[in-house]
């Protein structure tokens, strides 16, 4: 029997307590308050013969309870099991190598490889070693499973070789998540040996590393973090585009970009030059004191070109370019086949002209044609939408059919004519059963947008029979179909049973009109990818039907036609998505937090609860491991629980016995 906390044996001295209490004479019961005892001396105590142990059993029980409690506090365990089980289990070591973009600075990467090599060499033959690389994500380089299969010498060589093959990427630094994952790998590996482990972090520990996931993480006591920091004491400045261009620009105005220039705290320069690479414009000077940031207004580059904004004057090049997707303006033509004039405020055409406002990305022109006027195929071939309001000629009908089969959208607005039955509307009709899952109504599917009760229809026509494959997208509240879609070839025909002009309904003047018309326009070409400022690793939405994305280095990634996002943004630059309506460029830039290269003090990690491992000698380590094994053994045996239970039992017996004696005494005394 051994004890984990033998010092608690001093607690056994408490056994003297009950014995003393038994022997000390009992106090007189009465107590008299008196003003002052200064004239009184204590009366002599009662005769000594009265002091003797008269409740031997009770005394023994009380002492036994105290002894049991004292021994329980000493945490006893059986040693013979301990020696049998104490195999020479080594530590588990995870080497985490930072491959984020900031590691591209100077000779940081060389230093990092050297430190990783050193860490590998320090591992003992019984240690289990794994190597992971991390930036935005954590990637296994050399796993525990592989490591276990190799001899220690072989293992070292393979791991070194793998580390040599690594290169820093352009990604940001998710240090917090990487540490959590590494700890998870150590703890979950298996139950063999002790749970103790060590994470060796080889990193530049830059300020921009994201540690926030650690806030909700409880760092286990048995895992230590061994920091191997690589450092480059030169300063660095970075660029960040502040607002998406479409927010800050108006059509026709010369746009400015707002660019934030950040300068490192340990930087020695504060004057930087900004210029569009590949253009002849003058340099823009930016003064940024070390440790601060300034927002600089930069004139936009000429339309159509794909230059990038370059920063000069700092020591490190990796984050000095800011890419910007060129604005490729969509020029769309919508054909209106109908009798309405463009300036007739009571007609359909008048509202159509105003439905699509001009933006830097898109300009929509509406061409008006009479329904019976000859429609040229070339004219409508690439149009995203043809609106038909009236009876077309037979030839035009054929042209429209061909257009629809080629993927076009024909919007048929039913107008009063002898061939169409006019519905009887009591006062007004409203829309119901709206198919919000359809792309036409999908933009309005949110609960705050889907209220159509304010759009009242004074008149509508009846759509009698649905063509095969047709789908009713909305109905009036009298049950008649209001919007019907019929697929034709690759395209579709959409029928509105009522017009949007004021004589038919309130649709044109409601907030639903512009989203509906824009959705109609996008039925053919899909939604345009907004050319915003993406970051490395961001998921970029792409239009349906995009076949491939060309990367800045010239390589191309083929995409499934149904893909809606592109995930391969792994380098900064301008990417191009090949969509049905032509190439759509988008820009991807470095995570601006990578530019914050000031080194974090290790205390920051400790503030997040990370337990930094102390470099200790082998002897100390073995001693610590031995103690830990003992503690684990004691925990698994838990003899103290039985001792506490026994103490409780003894106390219960003592209470019962004392109660019985008190109860029985007066009874026996009262019998004469």
């Amino acid at each position, binding site marked *: 029997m051994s004890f984990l906390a033998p010092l608690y044996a001093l607690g056994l001295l408490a056994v003297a307590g009950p014995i003393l209490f038994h022997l000390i004479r009992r106090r007189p019961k009465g107590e008299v*308050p*008196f*003003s002052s005892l200064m*004239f*009184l001396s204590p009366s002599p105590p009662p005769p000594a013969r009265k002091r003797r142990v008269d409740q031997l059993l009770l005394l023994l029980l009380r002492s036994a309870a105290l002894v049991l409690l004292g021994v329980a506090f000493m945490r006893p365990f059986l040693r013979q099991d301990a020696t049998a089980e104490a195999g020479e289990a080594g530590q588990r070591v995870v080497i985490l190598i930072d491959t984020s973009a900031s590691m591209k600075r100077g000779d940081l990467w060389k230093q990092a490889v050297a430190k990783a090599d050193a860490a590998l060499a320090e591992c003992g033959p019984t240690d289990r070693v794994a190597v992971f690389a991390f930036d935005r994500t954590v990637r296994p380089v050399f796993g525990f499973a592989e490591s276990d299969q190799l001899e220690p010498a072989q293992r070292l060589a393979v791991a070194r070789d793998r580390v040599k093959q690594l290169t820093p990427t352009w990604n940001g630094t998710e240090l917090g998540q990487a540490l959590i994952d590494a700890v998870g790998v150590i703890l979950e590996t298996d139950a063999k040996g002790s749970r103790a482990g060590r994470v060796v972090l080889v990193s530049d520990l830059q300020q921009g590393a994201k540690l926030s996931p650690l806030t909700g993480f409880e760092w286990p006591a048995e895992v230590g973090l061994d920091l191997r920091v690589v450092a480059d004491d030169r300063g660095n400045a970075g660029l960040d585009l502040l607002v998406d261009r479409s927010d800050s620009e108006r059509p026709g105005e010369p746009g400015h970009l707002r660019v934030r220039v950040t300068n490192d705290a340990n930087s020695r320069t504060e004057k930087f030059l900004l210029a569009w690479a590949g253009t002849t414009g003058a340099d823009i000077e930016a003064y940024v004191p070390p440790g601060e940031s300034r927002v600089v207004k930069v004139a936009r580059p000429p339309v159509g070109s794909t230059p990038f904004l370059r920063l000069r004057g700092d020591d490190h090049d990796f984050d000095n370019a800011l890419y910007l997707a060129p604005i490729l303006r969509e020029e769309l033509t919508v054909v209106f086949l109908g009798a309405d004039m463009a300036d007739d405020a009571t007609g359909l055409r008048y509202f159509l002209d105003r439905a699509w406002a001009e933006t830097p990305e898109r300009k929509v022109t509406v061409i008006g044609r009479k329904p019976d006027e000859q429609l040229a195929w070339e004219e409508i071939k690439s149009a995203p939408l043809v609106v038909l309001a009236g009876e077309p000629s037979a030839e035009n009908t054929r042209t429209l059919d061909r257009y629809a089969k080629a993927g076009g959208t024909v919007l048929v607005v039913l107008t009063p004519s002898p061939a169409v039955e006019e519905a009887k509307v009591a006062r007004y009709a409203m829309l119901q059963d709206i198919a919000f899952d359809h792309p036409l109504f999908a933009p309005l599917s949110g609960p705050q947008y889907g209220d159509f009760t304010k759009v009242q229809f004074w008149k509508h026509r009846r759509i009698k029979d649905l063509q095969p494959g047709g789908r009713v997208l909305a109905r009036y509240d009298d049950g008649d179909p209001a919007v019907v879609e019929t697929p034709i070839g690759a395209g579709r025909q959409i029928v509105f049973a009522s017009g949007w002009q004021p004589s038919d309904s309130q649709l044109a003047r409601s907030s639903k009109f512009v989203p509906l018309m824009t959705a109609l326009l996008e039925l053919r070409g899909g939604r345009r990818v907004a050319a915003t400022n993406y970051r490395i690793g961001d998921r970029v939405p792409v239009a349906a039907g995009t076949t491939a994305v060309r990367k800045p280095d010239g390589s191309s990634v083929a995409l499934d036609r149904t893909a809606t996002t592109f995930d391969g943004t792994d380098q900064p630059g301008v990417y191009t998505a090949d969509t049905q309506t032509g190439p759509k460029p988008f820009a991807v830039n470095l995570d601006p937090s990578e530019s914050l290269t000031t080194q974090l003090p290790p205390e920051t990690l400790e503030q997040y609860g990370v337990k930094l491992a102390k470099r200790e000698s082998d002897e100390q380590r073995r001693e610590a491991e031995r103690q830990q094994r003992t503690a684990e053994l004691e925990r698994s045996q838990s003899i103290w629980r039985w001792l506490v239970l026994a103490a409780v039992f003894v106390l219960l017996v003592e209470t019962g016995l004392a109660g019985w004696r008190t109860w029985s005494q007066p009874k026996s005394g009262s019998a004469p």
Partner: protein
Amino acid sequence: MPPPPPPRRTSGEAPGQAPGFIDPAALSRVKSLQLRARLVVEGFDKGIHRSPYHGFSAEFSEYRQYTPGDDPRYLDWRLFARSDRYYIKKFEDETNLRCHLIVDGSRSMGYGSAGISKWDYARTAAATVAYFLSRQRDAVGLVTFEDRVVEYIPPRARPGHLAHLMAALQREPAGKATDLAGPLDEVGAATPRRGLFVLFSDLLVQPDAVRSSVGNLRAAGHDVIVFQVLDPQEVEFDFDTPAMFRDAESGKELFIDPRTAASEYRRRFTTHAAAVRQACVGAGADFEQMTTSRPLELVLYDLLTIRSKRGRVPGRNAGAGGAR
């Protein structure tokens, strides 16, 4: 040590023997201190003439040659013009008798075996004296103390001041240990003008402490009257059963068998009482011992007797404060 003088006997010492006096225990059931005081004083008035009111303004007394350190405000410049010498004008004190009532509020004063605690008795006595003196426009102040001064109300003769004193006496003390020297020295230091100090305390402290603190007051020129308030049990100690006796101030407990301890107690107590009396008298103060069963009117009677012996009857206030 000489045997202590026998306690002064008056015709009404025991309530049973003197139906004319009010039993203190019965009086303690009257809640308002002011009412208690009025009852006592009115009972007392039945056999004494009312004192005439006296008001004094600044009255010229004498000249004294100026010595450096004197207040130059009192230089007589006219005399200087005539005689080319500096003289100080001395005035009679402006006020009537300035009386400080000092009441011990320590925890030992809370003891009471005869229906009234020593504290209650002492504060009723103080209230009575205050009421009596304020009726003749004398300035009365109050000090209650435990181990330090708890309440200090300087002597005033203005209307409403009495109610203020009564309210202060009405407050129950927190009850701590007794320290006579500190509070008395403190009060003496705060009172530059000479006056009358009336101390109500059980004086259960070392006689040396009494001697030094009373002596200090006397040395400063004050008149001091000490009333030692005791409980009859403290004097007689006629308990009968052995018990744990708890000290009211220190909380210390002792096992006492009265059958064996009583005689020793009485001997030590009597010695102490004599020593305290000797300490007071030796220092030039007047001393009276009383138990809480003694009618309160007699306190007033004692006070007047003592003052008349000294020729300074508070009722016939002839410049009691003395000259400046």
